[in-house]
């Protein structure tokens, strides 16, 4: 294996490259990135980066890699048999082994793209544009109270900007964290002066060249200068369509992280079986997961990977509280709010078939680390069914959660 191509120069791609070098790969590594930037950390983009323009988001160690950086142009196709990544009119990149790490793209609001002042937040350029827009002290509407929307709302309240947060569901974060935890988050938003509109969706935007009014589905028109669309993200797999890999709400990989021989996928774009959930396919959009899967991709390409089932974990900042989770959380599990303190701290557990699968907390971090240890042990217990890229569907009955199964999204 001489030439490794890495499609997607983000956290998972960089980690894969670093692990390849650490394990002694001294052949070529080509980093193919759609963005003009070298890999950077996204979590600050919805937090301190919006408040403080000295925030450094660069990821260390890119110089030491001695990689070939092919930045600013996306991969546009994969020739699996010919072992080449296409890049539009640019020369293709030949490879012996490939890591797919193209992440996700932000969902947009249909029909609103034409107006200025309608933004999404995924990349550094998005964050720069958003930060510039904030200088004019806009009236802000945030569409979607998921992790990203909730966090952006909280950060903008720290700037004392007027924020209306629109969420179609009954509470913020209901799907990823469940009703009761979502209700706690709703209380936080209201206590910090957010105008929270639950059970409503953004139906349209009007204005002369730029957004002036945001229309809700009940006919309400909200005067606004800025609309932040935070409606979730879609795996970036368009460029892989028809290439022969199994695509199903992400690039499906086996328990080693491989999508095909010598082709690995890692990070937000990858969908893998989870032993903790009885083999069900999961896709996790968290920083820590990109690190773990990135390193695993390198091991898999070098043929030294052991089956792995990392326990997901995320964090999210809301008004000085820090929400942290381990494992699988969500409205689909049996939620037990174990502790709730008047000062806002709480601890909640998620169970499936009587078995602990996840937990979320604000404040009880040590307890969370104990939970994490437990889940680590559990995820190692059930023997994995022998599986290759062709036999990776979970056992019958485990896909009852809907077409996509668990997606730990941000």
């Amino acid at each position, binding site marked *: 294996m001489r030439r490794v191509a890495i499609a997607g120069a983000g956290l998972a791609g960089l980690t894969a490259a670093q692990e390849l070098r*650490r394990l002694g790969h001294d052949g070529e590594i080509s980093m193919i990135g759609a963005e003009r930037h070298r890999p950077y950390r996204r*979590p600050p983009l919805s937090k301190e980066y919006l408040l403080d323009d000295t925030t450094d988001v660069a990821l260390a160690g890119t110089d030491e890699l001695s990689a070939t950086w092919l930045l600013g142009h996306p991969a546009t196709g994969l020739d699996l048999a010919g072992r080449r990544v296409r890049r539009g009119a640019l020369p293709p990149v030949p490879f012996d082994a490939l890591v797919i790490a193209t992440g996700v793209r932000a969902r947009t609001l249909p029909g609103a793209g034409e107006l200025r002042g309608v933004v999404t937040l995924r990349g550094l350029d998005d964050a720069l544009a958003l930060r510039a827009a904030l200088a004019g002290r806009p009236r802000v509407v945030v569409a979607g109270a998921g992790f990203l929307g909730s966090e952006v709302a909280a950060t903008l309240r720290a700037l004392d900007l007027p924020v209306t947060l629109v969420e179609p569901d009954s509470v913020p974060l209901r799907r990823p964290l469940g009703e009761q935890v979502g209700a706690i988050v709703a209380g936080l938003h209201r206590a910090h002066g957010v105008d929270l509109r639950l059970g409503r969706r953004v139906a349209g935007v009007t204005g002369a060249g730029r957004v002036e009014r945001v229309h809700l589905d009940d006919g309400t028109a909200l005067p606004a200068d800025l609309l932040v669309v935070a409606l979730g993200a879609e795996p970036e797999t368009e460029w892989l369509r028809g290439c022969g890999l199994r695509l199903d709400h992400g690039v499906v990989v086996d328990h080693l992280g491989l999508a095909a021989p010598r082709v690995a996928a890692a990070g937000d774009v990858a969908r893998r079986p989870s032993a903790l959930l009885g083999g069900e396919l999961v896709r996790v959009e968290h920083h820590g997961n990109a*690190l773990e899967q990135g390193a695993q991709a390198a091991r898999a390409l070098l043929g030294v990977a052991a089956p792995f089932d990392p*326990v997901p974990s995320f964090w999210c900042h809301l008004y000085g509280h820090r929400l*942290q989770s381990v494992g699988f959380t969500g409205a689909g599990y049996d939620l037990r709010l174990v502790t709730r303190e008047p000062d806002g701290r709480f601890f909640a557990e998620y169970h499936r078939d009587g078995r602990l699968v996840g937990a979320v907390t604000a404040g009880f*971090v040590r307890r*969370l680390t104990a939970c*994490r*240890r437990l889940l680590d042990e559990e995820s190692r217990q059930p023997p994995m069914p022998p599986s290759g890229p062709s036999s990776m569907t979970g056992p019958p009955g485990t896909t009852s959660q809907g077409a996509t199964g668990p997606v730990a999204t941000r």
Partner: protein
Amino acid sequence: MRVRVDLTLCQTHAQCVFAAPEVFALDDDDELVYDATPGDASWPAVEQAARACPVQAIFLDGD
């Protein structure tokens, strides 16, 4: 090899505890404690921990 955590930066996200539990832990007051000179076997996990830290508070000095 040495590990140093800038405790003025650390916000006890515990991502390092998840990545390298044999080196990092939280004490009874939820403060971070760690082994500043872990053995070689822990090194890959420690490097992973340094990358996982949300505030990049973990500094490593190679041998």
